[in-house]
């Protein structure tokens, strides 16, 4: 794997983690206001 390929792979992983955390953050705020669990149901 070249250095560029490695950097792109890290970039993709960072974007996926950020996307999951973004959705979880909305869910956490909604749960705080309305009630609910952080996990389970429509996780994403």
């Amino acid at each position, binding site marked *: 794997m070249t250095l560029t390929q490695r*950097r792109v792979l*890290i*970039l993709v992983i*960072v*974007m*996926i*983690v*950020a*996307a*999951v*955390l*973004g*959705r979880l*953050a*909305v*869910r956490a705020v*909604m*749960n705080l*206001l*309305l*009630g*609910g*669990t952080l*996990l*389970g*149901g*429509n996780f994403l």
Partner: protein
Amino acid sequence: MWGFIYMGAFIASFIISAILKMTVDPFGGKYVTHWDSTVGTVYTDLSYGDGEANRFDLYVPADSGREHYGLVIYLHAGGFTSGDKSGDAEMLQWLCAKGYVAAGINYTLFSEENPQANVYTQSVEIRDSIPSVIAEAEKLGYHIDEMAVAGGSAGHALAMLYAYRDAEVSPVPVKMVFGAVGPSCFYLEDWINMGVDPDHPQPVDPDTDYSGVAGLFYAMSGKEITADMFATGEYLERVKDISAAMWIDENSVPTVCAYGAWDRVQAFGASRRLDAALTEHHVPHEYIVFPHSGHGLQNDNKLYGVYMEKVTEYLETYMPIDCP
């Protein structure tokens, strides 16, 4: 440089994903109606009383050739203190597109300007509005011969009060009620456990001062309720007029309802009493619990789909469209 790229990508992905979570319809527009004159016509802010809030919107289907129509009332949410019928336009359009005459009704909200308003006075306004709604539909050429009543949250509570407590005085037979997350009764042991693990509720502690709950029940019922009434159960008679579940009997109408198990806005335990009362009196009903959700039913999209399918099924069963 790559450090900045990673950071920028993280922030952009985080924000975009959060926005998509908040804005994308998980049902892909299945329950959204493309509203135009081929579907129906809406008449807004029609009056049913002297109060400033005594207004309703009436949605009538484009097909005006049938001999009679079912009316579906949908009452707005807002904790009895806010909200407006316009917030339910999507639901009312969906109902109208199915062939029903649909109406969203406003009621006087509890506020600094209207400190006398409470759940009971609001339920009376809704009860008194129905003849005007039907008369307006008749005036437009839509003969109403049956109705359903529904709502969300506070509107669901008011819908249930009309269906279980006031159906006998309705100008046309009430055939069913549906709605989500509406408080159905007011027992202390339910309301001290809002938002906690539904399988491990805390018992009532005789040494704890429940004045806050008493104040809430007082404000909602409009009848004086003090903390010392909890020990004797005296408060239950005072909240009966706003406790729809306490009016259920064998003549009560078929019901579809949905509740979030972790609701921290209204008491989930009250919904279990609603289910128990409907079961005890053999009333056809669907009680759908969203095990990961709270008041917004926000974490169980599949179950929301089930809820809407059950609403559709009950409408087709108990309010069938009479095709010409």
